[in-house]
């Protein structure tokens, strides 16, 4: 055995096609996921240069960003429709498998990759979408790329990349009751800032991470980009292997057992060194609510909004004040006093079956507050079906939630699921940027449980107390 290595080094070494001193390295891409928004110009580029797609069999496309989440058979927005039609034509022309809007596999690209077993440990995975980091939960090296790179991967199945630097985020301890993976990743970003991962591939390690389910791990890795890291991953273990067993694109029978051994051998070796390191204790994390316009502007639910006047740094003061103004909040305002008008349960961060189960648990027996419009948008068609088989749709509908078809929906409001100007939304998505959920919309990021509780209370409420008093 040589020097102990991190999982990132191991995956990297297996994928280098060409390297030269002082240059980025050419690495092979195992899986390329494609959606309607960031691909049209890439296909157009191929056509202009008369180039082909090198490996259509390593490419998989779906429609998620633009798709309506109700009345799907009639797409009113003609520009969205054109983008979807364009993807369909491109996939046909270039021979790429597509889960279109009516396909049983359709869903948010980062939900369906894992669900179909396309996402596997040790793979290099790219997509023209920053939340590609989600797939890192499996111990894959997965990152978002721009449209020029989409074209590059379509044509060559490779990318020029600098050798990644690694950052270990070690999470010891254990999450408390009512505290979720979403709260953990929000707390990590609140503590270390929206830039701490820039230039690194983050590996999440430690006792608390090992205890997370695959779906919770996906929530964590999903938001790596919100800390500036293009990729975040978790070393594969038995949890990873068991999740993949029986998935459609996973190896079968003896081949599966052999693959499982290989996957586990990718885990970071004891004693391997990272380029940087931070630590956080999970037992200290509380349910989180963002108050501002980037994901680090976040506090525990029992806290207040910050007071910029007590800060020394003028730029910092200015950016906090700007965020408070946009959000229509005062300094020192109790988070639990903030009334909301919308609740969105969905997005590639939190729309998997376990998210819906946990939200339904809170909702059960309650009623959506009279001033709140609440929607649930399952991450994929098959998550929707599973939820319906379990009766979760009835729980949500009885409580007054809307039950929609799969897509990105109000996470970025490119379809007609939009938060109106000045209105406030408790959202399980990943970005609270200005205008993200609609021009002038005010987004507060929370866990599915916190969103469900807020829907019923009409304000933010500590889900730990809520659980004890209502339904439970």
């Amino acid at each position, binding site marked *: 055995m040589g020097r102990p290595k991190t999982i990132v080094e191991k995956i990297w070494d297996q994928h280098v*096609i*060409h390297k030269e001193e*002082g*240059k*980025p390295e*050419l690495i*092979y891409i*195992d899986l390329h996921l494609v959606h309607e*928004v*960031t691909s*049209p*110009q890439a296909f*157009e580029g191929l056509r202009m*240069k008369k*180039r082909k797609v*090198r490996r259509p069999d390593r490419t998989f496309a779906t429609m998620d*960003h*633009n798709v309506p989440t109700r009345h799907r058979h009639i797409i009113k927005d003609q*520009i*969205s429709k*054109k*983008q979807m039609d*364009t993807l369909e034509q491109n996939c046909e022309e270039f021979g790429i498998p597509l889960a279109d809007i009516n396909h049983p596999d359709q869903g948010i690209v980062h939900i369906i990759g894992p669900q179909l077993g396309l996402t596997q440990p040790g793979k290099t995975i790219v997509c*023209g*979408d*920053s939340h590609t980091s989600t797939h890192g939960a499996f111990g894959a090296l997965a990152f*978002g*790329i*721009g*449209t*020029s*790179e989409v*074209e*590059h991967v379509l*044509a*060559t*199945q*490779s990318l*020029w990349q*600098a050798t990644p630097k690694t950052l270990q985020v070690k999470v010891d301890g254990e999450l408390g009751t009512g505290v979720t993976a979403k709260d953990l990743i929000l707390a990590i970003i609140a503590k270390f800032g*929206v*830039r701490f991962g*820039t*230039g690194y591939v983050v590996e999440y390690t430690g006792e608390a991470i090992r205890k997370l389910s695959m779906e919770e791990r996906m929530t964590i890795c999903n938001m790596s980009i919100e800390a*500036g890291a*293009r990729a975040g991953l978790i070393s594969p273990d038995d949890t990873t292997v068991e999740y993949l067993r029986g998935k459609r694109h996973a190896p079968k029978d003896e081949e599966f057992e052999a693959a499982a051994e290989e996957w586990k051998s990718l885990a970071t070796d004891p004693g391997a060194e990272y380029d940087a390191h931070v630590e956080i204790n999970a037992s200290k994390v509380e349910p989180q609510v963002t108050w501002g316009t*980037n994901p680090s502007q976040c506090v525990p639910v029992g806290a207040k909004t910050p007071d910029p006047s007590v800060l020394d740094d003028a*730029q910092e003061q200015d*950016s906090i004040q*700007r965020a408070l103004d946009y959000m229509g909040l005062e300094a020192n305002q109790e988070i639990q006093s903030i009334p909301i008008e919308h609740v969105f349960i969905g997005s590639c961060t939190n729309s998997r079956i376990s998210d819906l189960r946990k939200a339904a648990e809170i909702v059960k027996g309650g009623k959506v507050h009279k001033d709140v419009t609440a929607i649930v948008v399952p991450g994929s068609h098959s998550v929707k079906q599973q939820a319906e088989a379990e009766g979760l749709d009835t729980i949500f509908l009885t409580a007054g939630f809307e039950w929609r078809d799969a897509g990105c929906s109000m996470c*970025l*409001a*490119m379809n007609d699921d939009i938060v109106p*100007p000045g209105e406030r939304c408790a959202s399980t998505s990943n*970005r609270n*940027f*200005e*205008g*993200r959920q609609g*021009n002038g919309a005010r987004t507060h990021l929370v866990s599915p449980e916190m969103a469900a509780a807020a829907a019923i209370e009409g304000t933010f409420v500590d889900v730990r107390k809520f659980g004890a008093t209502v339904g439970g």
Partner: protein
Amino acid sequence: MEPIKQHEGLIYPLDRSNVDTDQIIPKQFLKRIERQGFGQFLFYNWRFNDDGSLREDFSLNDPMYKEATVLVGGENFGCGSSREHAPWAIQDYGFKVVIATSFADIFYNNCFKNGILPIVLPRHEVNDLLNQAKEEKVMIGVDLVNQLVKSDHGLVSAFDIQPYHKDMLLNGWDEISVTLNYAEAIDQYETEKAK
């Protein structure tokens, strides 16, 4: 892609940190299937009122910056979504160079594919440029060959750039053509490892 070797232009100061790509180009404009024509939508929600009129409180609308080709921003410029529509909008609007104290990775990479030169300078230098350019017109010269910037207010600063990125801009490379020279190595990789 058009090569860049030297550039001289007027600064537009955007004194904000964490400017995300949702701000640079809001999602309602991502539905187009072309690469051109995004400049008119740059910073749309900051530049325009709901009725489509110009917002006077947003500095890019100040006639003083009409000819600007060098955008100076704060920390973590271009964070968030991977949308390449962001550099397309910046370029189409007329900017050739973006200077900031730091950039988000994907945005930084996307710049090189579109003939935009992103330059990282130390915070005090960026702050000086921002403060001067807020007061009056400031011209800045950028020399990519020698990796130097010079403002007409006397700032002279060297900047770092990876040789690969530099070559890409100097030559206006089509990266895919470059990679296709390695087609044999890719074939070989596929035969050995990725069948």
